């Protein structure tokens, strides 16, 4: 019988000395090379093999060795893991029941989520996003999915991230105040490369603002709301049809790039009802599941190709023992919060995988830009009256074009720069329901090459076509 203390791990706390009922161990005053006073096994002959010392050692550093007993084989019986997720195909065509329906924007978002394969929703009621939760609460159980109304929006995004790691596509939806609460965990999702969709049905702020009125003030928050360096994808629908279509796209991009995708809707689009078409078939993308032997689940994948953009993502309960942490970590998930190169490599990758694939992600709508001297830029609800105004102005002979970013982030900067350079754009009018909103991004892209006019409107009312037409007419003078 012997009691062995592993000097590599012992920190000299002497808990073993205190708990030994037979006084086998003794405090030592002599320090070892590491500066630790490792307790002495003073009276091994008195040991009764109770293993209290083993059980109490905080460092797992004590072994009570029974010389008569040979080491037994590990008793762990490998059981089939809990609920192995079916290996998801990266691309999938899914059939739907095609039909024309009248849906509220919020309802169309929920329908889109279900079509995309979302089977988990967590949320907290907030105008004007509540209808998304209500629709998901009704639809999800019909499709075998789980819905939970959480205690707040922080819990909602947390649950969505947790569900995603259990292998289920997940979503949450909110508006300004709730979106502010979610920011920390959106950063967490970006840091842990967790696919999930967050809907922000923007309302008038700051703070409680005009709770029932639409606005477009969250563009910068959607990208920069959490602390530190990261990138997300944000899409902005301008109709019920797009609420459906872009929610599906948000899921696909989120899965493809393992990044939180934000559907940046607004109270106007969220609450209008429109006739729209449910298509016969949709394409959906799924995350890459690990293959035999994979152990690196984060960062740039080995052998990256256009179809292997991210590292494979295992699901909890499938025996991969994945470690997911918001602390800086290496490709195997292990925390390393002090090595400069690790932080640099990982965080640069989180940004690069989005920025360097902007051509794949970015989408926009462009009309009448040939020969345009004035360009109206508008997105979301405001882009509807903006397009009407541009059409009216064209009829009146004004050389004006229309440009609508569909992906707000990454922004369609490449195409915008081309238009500005090629078409001799003299003036850009940015029409949006915000005082700052998206304007700084357009300012950055235009880089002083043309005059910028901000046609901003706040107070909870959407622009009329006439108001934007007036701005165009004024600019054309």
């Amino acid at each position, binding site marked *: 019988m012997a009691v062995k203390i592993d000097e590599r791990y012992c920190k000299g*706390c002497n808990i073993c000395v205190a708990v030994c009922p037979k006084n086998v161990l003794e405090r030592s005053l002599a320090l070892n090379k590491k500066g630790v006073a490792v307790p002495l096994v003073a009276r091994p002959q008195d040991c009764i093999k109770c293993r209290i010392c083993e059980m*109490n050692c905080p460092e797992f550093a004590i072994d009570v060795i029974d010389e008569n007993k040979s080491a037994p084989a590990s008793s762990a019986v490998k059981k089939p893991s809990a609920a192995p997720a079916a290996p998801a195909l990266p691309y999938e065509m899914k059939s739907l029941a095609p039909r024309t329906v009248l849906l509220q924007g919020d309802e169309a978002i929920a329908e889109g989520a279900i079509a995309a394969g979302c089977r988990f929703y967590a949320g907290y009621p907030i105008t004007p996003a509540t209808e998304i939760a209500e629709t998901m609460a009704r639809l999800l159980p*019909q499709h075998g999915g789980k819905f939970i109304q959480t205690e707040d929006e922080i819990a909602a995004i947390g649950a969505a*991230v*947790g569900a995603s790691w*259990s292998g289920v596509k997940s979503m949450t939806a909110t508006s300004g105040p709730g979106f502010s609460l979610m920011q920390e965990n959106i950063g967490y999702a970006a840091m842990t490369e967790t696919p999930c969709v967050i809907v922000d049905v923007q309302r008038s702020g700051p703070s409680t603002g005009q709770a029932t009125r639409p606005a477009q003030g969250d563009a910068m928050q959607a990208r920069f709301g959490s602390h530190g360096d990261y990138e997300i994808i944000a899409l902005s629908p301008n109709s019920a049809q797009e609420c459906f279509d872009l929610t599906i796209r948000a899921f696909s991009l989120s899965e493809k790039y393992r990044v939180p995708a934000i559907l940046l809707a607004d109270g106007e689009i969220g609450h209008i009802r429109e006739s729209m078409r449910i298509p016969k078939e949709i394409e959906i993308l799924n995350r890459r599941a690990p293959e035999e032997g994979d152990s690196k689940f984060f960062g740039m994948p080995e052998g990256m190709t256009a179809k292997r953009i991210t590292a494979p993502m295992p699901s909890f309960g499938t025996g991969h023992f994945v470690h997911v942490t918001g*602390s800086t970590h290496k490709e195997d998930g292990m925390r390393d919060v002090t090595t400069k190169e690790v932080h640099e490599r990982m965080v640069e990758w989180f940004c690069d995988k989005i920025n360097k694939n902007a051509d794949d992600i970015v989408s926009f709508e462009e009309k009448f830009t040939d020969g345009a001297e004035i360009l109206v830029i508008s997105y979301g609800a405001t882009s509807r009256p903006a397009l009407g105004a541009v059409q009216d102005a064209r009829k009146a002979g004004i050389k004006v074009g229309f440009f609508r970013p569909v992906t707000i982030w990454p922004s369609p900067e490449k195409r915008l720069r081309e238009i500005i350079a090629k078409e001799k754009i003299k003036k850009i009018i940015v029409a949006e329901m915000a005082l700052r909103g998206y304007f700084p991004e357009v300012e950055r892209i235009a880089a002083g090459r043309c005059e910028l006019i901000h046609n901003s409107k706040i107070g909870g009312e959407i622009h009329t076509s006439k108001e934007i037409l007036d701005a165009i007419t004024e600019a054309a003078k």
Partner: protein
Amino acid sequence: MTTAKEIRNKYLRVRPFPFCPGCGGGMVLNAFARAIDDMKIPNEDILIIAGIGCSSWIPSPFFKADTLHTTHGRSLSFGTGAKLANPLLKVVAFTGDGDGTGIGGNHLIHAARNNIDMVVLCINNNIYGMTGGQVAPTTPREVKTATTPYGNPSNPFDACKLVEGAGATFVARWTTAHIPQLISTIKKALRHKGFSFIEVVSQCPTHYGRRTGMQDAPSMLKFFKEIYSINAAESRMRLGEFVNIEKPELCEDISKMIEMVAGAEQAKEKKTGQSTAKGATCKPMQVRIAGRGGQGIVLAGILLGHAFASCGINVLQTQSYGAEARGGACKADVIASDEPINDLSPEKPDVLLAMSSEALEKYGNGVPLIILDDLVSAAAKARAVFDRSAQCCQTDSTRAEPLASGQLSVVSEQKARIAAGWEVSAGSKVVRVAATKTAKESGSIMSANMGMLGAFAAITGSVSKDALAAAIRENSDERFAEVNVRVMEKCFGDIGRLLPS
């Protein structure tokens, strides 16, 4: 008993731990690993969740299982999502007194209330250790910490009482001086179906012991043995298993509900997906319906929208109302157009369906066709207008006063004015419909809005009665669908008889 070596091989991913000498954290992990081992729970089935603080570093990344190390205080939210999405996971949270009852307090009480099946090990060291010894929600009064240099003025939490009150179905407390009891309780908690909370009072010699006159771990353990007991007078110091009861568990309940809903869906006859009325056509039009909250204004707008949409025309429907659900001003706009609809807020509707005097006053100006509910005439201001305009057409179920010509009413060229300043422009047609009266007679005063839609369809011909009836049946509450259709059809017929053939 499993040897230390076996425990290390089976359950530790890496070593050494980053804890101070004598920290109780490793003791809790040791006890947890032994409980798991005794129960032979495979590592693959375990999901460890953790937040921020020393407590959360106890298993992360050291314990060999899936480990989700989340943001500060939020681990139970993440765990709730993971567990709901895969109920087969054995979810165990390692949290601290600050992480669990301070920043994460709200999640803790709601996880307990939900009785979601997970084990929460709350390692209570009475202090914020990782950040350097600041006061925690569990720090006793008068203790001097880095942020209470003159003594703690606040009362400490009794975390066990807190979660018990919130609905936890398994609650216990031990200290790191009671490892065998702790192992036995962890096993019970792992077996328990529901929310299990174990507070483990643990030593932080570095920040708490030092500040309270206890220099090392053995002296703190000795102190725990002395003041924490099964019979301690103060509840915070009491040890043992306090709650062990059965209650419905969240994941099971949700799964049962899903089965029920899925069954009901299958039983339901498959609805014909395509609601487009064959060959139905409708006329492009901008309609505004306005009244007070509670009159079904928005519902009328939605149903009219559905009726238009069933003809395949572009439809946009919006509404606005105040924060109150009943009684406030309320309007719904419906635009039906052959063209894409760009203007989302129609300035000038072609038709106004007014169900209150305020609505008429606010939106009536300049609208070519106004359809009034009979309620509106009760309001003094509105009466002033229509009494003077002799050419108003009035109908109700018992009395019809069409114009001699049989045409719809035309307010005289002279503008009819009311005291409030509202005016009906020359040329506006105004029709009064006994929608509320008809609805009342049909036994469902709430269906007046449907009467208004019926009258609208009859007068304008922009949408068919059948399309409206189909929209009502498909999209309104089953209990009211038939009476809604009856009232709509009655008003459609009453008005229709007055119209020139």
